[in-house]
């Protein structure tokens, strides 16, 4: 029966001081919401930046060397793909061009990333509905799931894509032949176009460029042996002039702002966890200080340090667990209530890590308080110290 005494004491104190403990549970809940929301936002923004590149059906991305791994600055001539294909270990090369535009829909136009790809080559996403491109100059489009959802487009729809070319904004009509899974780029939903169509539709800074030779930004390279990534990258750099090849992770980490954005959000999460640790630790330390006389009395009448500590730890665990569970549910509910344009995305492994960390901050924060309780002398019940 004595083994239940810590639970009995811990539970009774919570039950008979519901308002005080509810306040702390509320704080843990808010911290949990904040941590999970920042984590989801971080994941959502990160995915919005890297999704297209991270899910490419290729192992390497080749840039113009002078572009310093900046996709927008990298300009490569169309015939470069032939040189890349000749490198030993390269199985396929797909030129990929990135631009921005908008699609006409009911209400406001929807800003999109316009991605030009070579049919049948790396860079063309798999379609979950419909078919892929028929030829490079087809007036066809594969829209990603975000465009389909936000613009309400369906297979077979004729959609109008607008882009700024020189001083004009031009419109082009393309037919939706396929719908791909989410493939955001630059935190925008994306529309994939066949290479020649993309070349006509893409945004161009000056009139002269409109007449310029076809070009693309980077080349997606699929390898015969995906394990030979580094060796083939080195071979490409050695055999093809003025280019550099990197793996996909390096590529998306060099997307403008990606690393800074992710580290900023990680820092925010870390600080929120630290604040949680201090708040919970502070609460339990105050609680411990307030209970010194009571703990002294309990020890004087024969309660062991183990009983006192176990009752306290039970409270910490209960409060933290309830707070974290309610917070996790609230964060999930909040994400459902937010409009789909807010890039929150829960990644199970990340959520699990955050929840485990949040569950740990209670016991860690309460550890100092437990130490204080263990040091209380039963003599304090008589107003004495040793």
């Amino acid at each position, binding site marked *: *029966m*004595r083994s*239940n*005494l810590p639970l*009995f*004491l811990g539970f*009774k*104190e919570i*039950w*008979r*001081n519901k308002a005080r403990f509810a306040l702390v549970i509320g704080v843990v809940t808010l911290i949990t919401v904040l941590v999970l929301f920042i984590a989801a936002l971080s994941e959502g923004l990160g995915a919005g930046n890297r999704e297209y590149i991270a899910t490419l059906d290729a192992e390497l991305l080749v840039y113009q060397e002078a572009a310093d791994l900046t996709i927008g600055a990298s300009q490569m001539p169309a015939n470069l793909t032939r040189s890349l294909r000749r490198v030993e270990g390269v199985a396929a090369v797909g030129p990929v061009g990135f631009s921005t535009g908008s699609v006409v829909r009911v209400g406001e136009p929807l800003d999109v990333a316009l991605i030009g790809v070579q049919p049948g080559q790396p860079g063309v996403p798999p379609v979950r509905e419909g078919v892929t491109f028929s030829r490079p100059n087809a007036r066809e489009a594969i829209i990603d799931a975000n465009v389909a959802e936000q613009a309400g487009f369906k297979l077979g729809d004729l959609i109008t894509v607008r882009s700024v070319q020189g001083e004009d904004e031009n419109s082009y009509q393309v037919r939706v032949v396929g719908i791909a899974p989410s493939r955001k780029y630059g935190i925008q939903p994306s529309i994939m176009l066949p290479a020649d169509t993309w070349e006509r539709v893409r945004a161009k800074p000056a009139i002269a460029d409109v007449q310029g030779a076809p070009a693309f930004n980077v080349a997606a390279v699929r390898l015969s042996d995906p394990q030979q990534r580094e060796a083939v990258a080195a071979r490409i750099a050695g055999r093809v002039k003025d280019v550099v090849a990197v793996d996909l992770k390096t590529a998306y980490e060099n997307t403008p702002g990606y690393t800074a954005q992710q580290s900023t959000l990680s820092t925010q999460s870390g600080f929120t966890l630290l604040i949680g640790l201090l708040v919970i630790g502070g609460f339990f330390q105050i609680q411990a200080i307030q209970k010194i*006389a*009571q703990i*002294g*009395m*309990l*020890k*004087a*009448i*024969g*309660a*062991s340090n183990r*009983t006192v500590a176990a009752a306290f730890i039970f409270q910490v665990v209960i409060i933290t667990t309830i707070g974290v569970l309610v917070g996790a549910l609230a964060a999930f509910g909040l994400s459902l209530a937010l409009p789909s344009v807010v890039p929150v995305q829960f990644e199970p492994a990340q959520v699990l890590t955050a929840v485990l960390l949040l569950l740990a901050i209670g016991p860690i924060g309460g550890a100092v308080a437990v130490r204080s309780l263990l040091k209380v*002398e*039963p*003599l304090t*019940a*008589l*107003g*004495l110290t*040793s």
Partner: protein
Amino acid sequence: MAIALEAKHVVKEYMVDGSTLTAVGDVSLQIAAGEFVALVGPSGSGKTTLLAMLAGLLAPTSGQIAIAGRELSAMKEAERTRFRREKIGFTFQANNLVPYLNVQENVELMLQLNRNTSAAGRARAKDLLARLGLGQRLHNLPGQLSGGQQQRVAIARSLIHDPAIVLADEPTASLDTERAFQVVETFAELIHEEGRAGVMVTHDLRMCTHVDRVIHMTDGVIDRIYTSRHDILALAQGEAIHEVPVS
């Protein structure tokens, strides 16, 4: 009667700024089962320090203390803690009760500590509380009770687990005179009826009316002991304390 508590040449010294301060100096005493003893004396006379040593809460610098035949200094800390919850009952001047446990739970706490939450034990807790006039207050929290009622709950808790000795530190300090007399009278009745040994530290000599012996301390040593009913009543009523012969 059997000896419930025996202290032999108990000394407690502290080092203060390099010099030795004697809080209790060479105290020896015996208390029998069923005997209720008051430990009195001015502030700083060492009575609370002696009580702490009798309770096994403070180790004497020298000397031996035995309760129910068990030598306290021979026990390790964990064993002493277990011995306290099994063989000693306590009431304190303040902070006696666990504030978030109701009256019945506070009393049964001693049973829980001793792993004895039998139906008989719980029934005894209710009977004891009813006897102390708290039968209608079983589900009240300490904050809903008067000071006297809280002390009566503490008395019930100090007796519920069948201890060999009950130690009370200034149990009436925060009570008005009428309630203080009621508490001490009840305490004395239960100690006598149940055959416990009882030691009460008090600075209020009037509270000695119901005790069997008064031990007076000054500067850490016992300087007078009153054993006759006449002397104790005279002391309690404030009559010519210096004329009472030292036993």
